[in-house]
């Protein structure tokens, strides 16, 4: 092995151990080779059909890479998403125009090309560059998650998507997948940010309550493990949502009782209970679920699935077993998992609604047949929801009027009115059906509403006759699961909760010092005038402060409370190319002042919800 190849692999194994493992496990399918060209240069090629494709210029590879890089502007905080690694020359040229504020995320669709590059080109500078991250597209299970780990709200308008020559033609589907992943991640970030700004204090309040509550509760991993002992191929999961069509066929669920897992979303609960049906599981995950959803019904003894944002009022008022699903934040999840002795699995891609989350959970549990009921995803017969809750969210007609409406095809081929949000959920279901073809059978037994492409359409009566064949009491099966943490472990977790107040007070003190530091820096900067060296040094000190705070775990809480201030600042702070350095320092100071002010809100909520 050539000396630089050895060095490449040593560095790769060190900085990318997970990817290195994937390379060793995967079978190579592409025919890739390296050709010598003029002046001691080399170029990577691959065969596709009967044709050889060269992944760089055979005349002047460095020159071609420079020309490619000249296409893209350089600016601070820009994040380059590059489809293709090639021989590394294009990446190197792009890195030359970047500074330490930039990121370069490389999506390589062919592991074989990457291996060829590693064996034939000196890549030490690229592999050691901390601004770079590499993802092998074919081997990646969740591109959206990978992208979400690299960018935040402030990057959304600062992304440059680049495709190396030849890669879009050679790998069109994987290229589309990456673009879809970037779009999906961007939508998630915008939606999460908007949600946090809308919900403001409710988010941290609910999270504090649920962190405390989950110590004595159960979790969804336990349900999954319990269900593993059954053969789920003959047992469907039925997801009952609150669409208007639920009124038509809810009674049919009686025949499915004891022969399926009936998962009822909170908004459908009234309709289901009043029809005399007992859900096996109720799911409630939204921070602002209307109390009216639960008015006038007996809810003792239910099995609840909740998440970190479940409204505390529900759990305070209704006795029943609670199974928490998904995590809270990195620090808390790690502590809980240490006590549990196993990982709390995140529910990947929950889709953004309680119904889509129910679907994701049913899939997570291992169900191979999922029946959708009440999943109208349209304003069927001019109504937004099942009659039991249609006015729980205010006047029905006004509600529909105020939505951004679109037309979709109904299950009878008719045109139906829906809104943009339901349209997104519909597309989510359709993608899930497509992605899980052959693994999960999805039946739309709504008997109304929008057509969900890819789902098999049946009446609920027929679906029950066809798929609910085995007698199995899943309610009891789940109800018998006991909380996993003993008194000692609960005691340790409770101590961690108690320590949060002290940690926040420490952070408050630190923020106070930082604000004074930044004020001093502002004064120094103003006096620096033409002293560019001193100005640069001050900016580097500010950058260092920001980097230090990125590691502060309690800051995540303050970001909920200061969401509005962050939004106002970050809308400008990275995008405004003409922003002066003084302004940058001023804005940073204002942000830290906002965090400082919010520490008191956290302590107030901590005492109300977590003690």
């Amino acid at each position, binding site marked *: 092995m050539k000396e630089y190849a050895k060095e490449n692999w040593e560095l790769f194994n060190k900085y990318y151990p997970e990817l290195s493992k994937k390379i060793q496990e995967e079978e190579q399918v592409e025919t890739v080779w390296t050709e010598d060209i003029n002046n001691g240069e080399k170029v990577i090629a691959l065969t596709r059909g009967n044709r050889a494709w060269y992944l760089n210029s055979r005349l002047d590879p460095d020159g071609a890479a420079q020309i490619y890089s000249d296409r893209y502007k350089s600016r601070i905080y820009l994040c380059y998403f590059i489809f293709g690694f090639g021989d590394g020359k294009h990446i190197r040229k792009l890195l030359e125009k970047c500074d330490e504020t930039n990121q370069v995320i490389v999506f390589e669709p062919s592991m074989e090309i990457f291996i060829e590059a590693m064996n034939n080109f000196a890549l030490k500078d690229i592999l050691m560059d901390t601004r770079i991250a590499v993802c092998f597209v074919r081997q990646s299970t969740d591109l959206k998650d990978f992208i979400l780990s690299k960018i935040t709200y402030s990057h959304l308008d600062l992304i440059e998507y680049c495709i190396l020559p*030849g890669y879009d033609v050679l790998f069109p589907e994987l290229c589309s997948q990456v673009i879809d992943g970037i779009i999906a991640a961007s939508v998630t970030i915008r939606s999460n940010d908007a949600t946090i700004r809308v919900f403001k204090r409710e988010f941290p309040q609910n999270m504090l309550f649920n962190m405390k509550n989950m110590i004595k509760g159960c979790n969804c991993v336990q349900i999954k493990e319990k269900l593993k002992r059954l053969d789920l191929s003959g047992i469907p999961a039925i997801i009952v949502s609150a669409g208007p069509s639920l009124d038509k066929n809810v009674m049919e669920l009686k025949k499915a009782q004891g022969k399926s897992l009936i998962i009822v979303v909170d908004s459908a609960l009234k309709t289901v209970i009043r029809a005399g049906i007992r859900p096996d599981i109720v799911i409630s995950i939204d921070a602002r679920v209307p109390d009216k959803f639960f008015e006038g019904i007996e809810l003792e003894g239910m099995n609840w699935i909740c998440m970190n944002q479940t409204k505390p009022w529900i759990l305070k008022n209704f006795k029943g077993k609670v199974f928490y699903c998904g995590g809270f934040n990195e620090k808390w999840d790690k502590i809980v998992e240490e006590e549990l002795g196993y990982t709390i699995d995140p529910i990947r891609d929950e889709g953004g609604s309680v119904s889509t989350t129910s679907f994701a959970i049913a899939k997570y549990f291992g169900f191979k047949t999922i029946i959708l009921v009440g999943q109208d995803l349209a304003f069927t017969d001019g109504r937004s929801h099942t009659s039991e809750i249609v006015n729980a969210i205010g006047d029905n007609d006004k509600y529909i009027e105020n939505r951004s409406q679109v037309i979709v095809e109904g299950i009878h081929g008719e045109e139906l009115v829906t809104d943009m949000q339901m349209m997104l959920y519909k597309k989510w279901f359709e993608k899930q059906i497509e992605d899980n073809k052959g693994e999960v059978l999805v039946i739309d037994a709504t008997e109304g509403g929008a057509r969900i492409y890819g789902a098999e359409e049946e009446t609920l009566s027929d679906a029950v006759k066809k798929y609910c064949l085995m007698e199995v009491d899943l309610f009891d099966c789940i109800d018998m699961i006991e909380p996993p943490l003993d008194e000692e472990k609960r005691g340790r977790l409770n101590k961690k909760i108690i320590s949060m107040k002290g940690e926040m007070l420490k952070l408050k003190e630190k923020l106070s010092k930082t604000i004074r530091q930044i004020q001093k820096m502002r004064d120094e900067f103003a006096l620096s005038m033409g002293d560019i060296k001193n100005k640069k040094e001050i900016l580097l000190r500010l950058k260092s402060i920001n980097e230090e705070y990125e590691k502060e775990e309690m800051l995540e809480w303050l970001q909920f409370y200061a969401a509005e201030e962050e939004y106002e600042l970050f809308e400008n702070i990275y995008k405004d190319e003409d922003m002066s350095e003084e302004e940058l320092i001023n804005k940073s100071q204002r942000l830290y002042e906002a965090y400082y002010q919010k520490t008191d809100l956290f302590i107030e909520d901590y005492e109300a919800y977590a003690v």
Partner: protein
Amino acid sequence: MDARELEGKIDHASILMYQNQEEEALREMNALFPYLKALIGDDLFNSNKQAAAIGISMMRELIDGYKNCDMLLMADCLQEKAIIVLGIYESLRDTVD
């Protein structure tokens, strides 16, 4: 179009190709084809067997690259063979003049 102008267009098209600006690159290549075809179809050019061979090889590569959207193949071919062909054509014309 004179030689300098044509060379400029060849360079411009090559840059677009090296930069993987596919749509514009293919448009520019499509616009260049008639000029290059006229060049190699010229009797004076064809009187030189070596030049004629390079010309045919150039067109084959460009057409193959165009059909397959192979930007790098087209760019290299333009920067190498098309420039050579243009150079030969100009020198043959100068000799006649």
